[in-house]
């Protein structure tokens, strides 16, 4: 600033400056409302088109029907096969992600040296940054073709198992990272107390640190669950597009997200039953993930052990 007079003029800004100062908070508030409007928009569009859908298909049939054949001449809109496919892939994913994620979290937090942790943690988080279409490619061309074909020679090209494994690998860093954060927040004196009693590292990890960090660990698993339900490209590529009620993970299935992709690619005619079914499936998916996310928030807040 050259001198007091021009400096003051520039800073206080005169009448124009005062007007700007009065109006900017309102402009900023308007900008920040876009995110709220987005949520409202999501709920309204989903609910509106779903209402149209329910005029043609009864909610009871939608929720309890065992056939999903919207693209056939004989149309049935029972969402159970899509739910079953989603749940099977999510279950496989969690069977992979919980042991891998928790094991990594315990190793990073309790066993690894500081230097090893500083290198390993970001590298593991790279797994979360890889686009899901890449996992889809990996599931289809490597997990199925190279690995699973040898173990199960009669496996379908598109199958729930390979998609589940790939989704599991994708959500592993979510569990390992958030759980490691929760474990790192457990105060050192709790560990030192246990060590002073002669406990081994594993005893400290499993009987002191894990229980103290349990709310963070469980909420990370719930978030992983929610992410797995909403995962789209891996299942669209690797799981196939055959909605069916089955317990066999070697068969092709279809998930809720898989159906949305299939319907969207089919250039759904506006207003047709296929178009509105997209929204009915979408709102089911939305409510599931919203419930999971709220549950994770609740667990983290309700059961958190607070340490000074």
């Amino acid at each position, binding site marked *: 600033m050259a001198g007091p007079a021009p400096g003051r003029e520039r800073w206080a800004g005169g009448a124009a400056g005062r007007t700007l100062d009065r109006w*900017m908070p309102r402009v900023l508030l308007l900008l*920040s409302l876009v995110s709220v409007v987005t*949520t409202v928009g999501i709920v309204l569009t989903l609910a509106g088109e779903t209402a149209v859908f329910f005029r043609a298909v009864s909610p009871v049939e939608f929720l309890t029907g065992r056939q999903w054949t919207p693209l056939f001449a004989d149309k049935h809109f029972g969402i159970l096969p899509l739910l079953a496919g989603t749940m099977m892939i999510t279950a496989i994913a969690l069977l992979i992600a919980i042991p891998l994620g928790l094991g990594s979290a315990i*190793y990073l937090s309790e066993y*690894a040296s500081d230097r090893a942790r500083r290198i390993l943690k970001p590298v593991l988080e790279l797994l979360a940054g890889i686009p899901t279409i*890449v996992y889809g490619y990996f599931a289809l061309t490597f997990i199925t073709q190279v690995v699973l074909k040898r173990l199960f020679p009669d496996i379908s090209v598109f199958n729930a198992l390979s998609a589940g494994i790939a989704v599991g690998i994708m959500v592993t860093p979510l569990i390992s990272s958030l759980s490691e954060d929760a474990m790192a927040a457990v105060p050192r004196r709790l560990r030192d107390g246990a060590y002073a009693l002669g406990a081994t590292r594993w005893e400290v990890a499993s009987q002191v640190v894990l229980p103290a960090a349990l709310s963070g660990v469980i909420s990370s698993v719930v978030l992983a669950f929610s992410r797995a339900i909403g995962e789209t490209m891996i299942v669209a590529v690797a799981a196939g597009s055959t909605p069916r009620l089955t317990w066999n993970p070697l068969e092709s299935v279809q998930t809720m997200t898989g159906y949305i992709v299939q319907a969207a690619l089919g250039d759904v005619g506006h207003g047709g039953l296929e178009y509105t079914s997209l929204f009915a499936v979408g709102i089911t998916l*939305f409510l599931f993930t919203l419930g999971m*996310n709220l549950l994770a928030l609740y667990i983290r807040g309700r059961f958190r052990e607070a340490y000074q």
Partner: protein
Amino acid sequence: MARVLEAGAAARAVGVPAAAHLRRRRRVDRFFRSLCLLATLTGLAVLVVLLADVVADGWRHLDGQFLTRFNSRLPERAGIFPALVGSLWVVGVAAPVLLVLGVGTAVYLEEYGGNSVWARLIKINIDNLAGVPSIIYGILGLALFVRGLGLGTVVLAGALTMALLVLPVVIVATQEALRAVPPSLRHASYALGATRWQTTWRVVLPAALPGILTGTILALSRAIGETAPLIVVGAVTFVRFVPAGLLDPYTVLPIQIYSWIMLPQDAFKELAAAGIIVLLAVLLVMNGLAIYLRNRYQQRW
């Protein structure tokens, strides 16, 4: 672990049966240590195998022509040029929208909102939006931009959908950058007679700029890798032209990759792998840029 070892040595010296018990406990410890290490290394191994698999499948197609050719029904003549340009278009249009909305929201929350009801509502809402599956944003974009505003399946509709999808990332990153600016800077500015907005615009925002840019680049790199929402808002998969404006049809890298994967011939799978290498290279450059910006311009107060 010295204390535990001493305890074991003492127990062995006096010959109490606790020695056998302690040996067993140490074996259990070693067993679980190996198991946890194995879990960590499995993640790393998968990462290595995944990258090696993609490179092994796709490297033969990687040359200058692959980057500059249009798509083709003959795999040996197909290229990724329109998808690459389409991705740049979507990100380029989404970036200013993101900056205005994201930084505006964060500035309101950090500098003006305080603990008001609106501010708390917006915060809770952002937490929830971050957990909504990306394909749901695609459905919103389809209903709102493609059909509602009647834009059709054009660059602008895709870019707006993407901007809404990654908005929470930019808001949270900007909030953290603003919080890192020490209050003493603001107080100094007020003491010179500056108004609140002048302080925000000329003092706080410039100081927070590196953090804001880093967050925005990371958000855009997530947008580049996203496929599902753009499939729903109709980024077409076979374009023989490059978008020239906001209202032109387009395709993007991940969707081009997806459509090649779903073709039955193996040659197209190799093309998909080559496309994945290009996509990962773009992401690597963007993340590298973000890290560089953070390290180069980050201020410690």
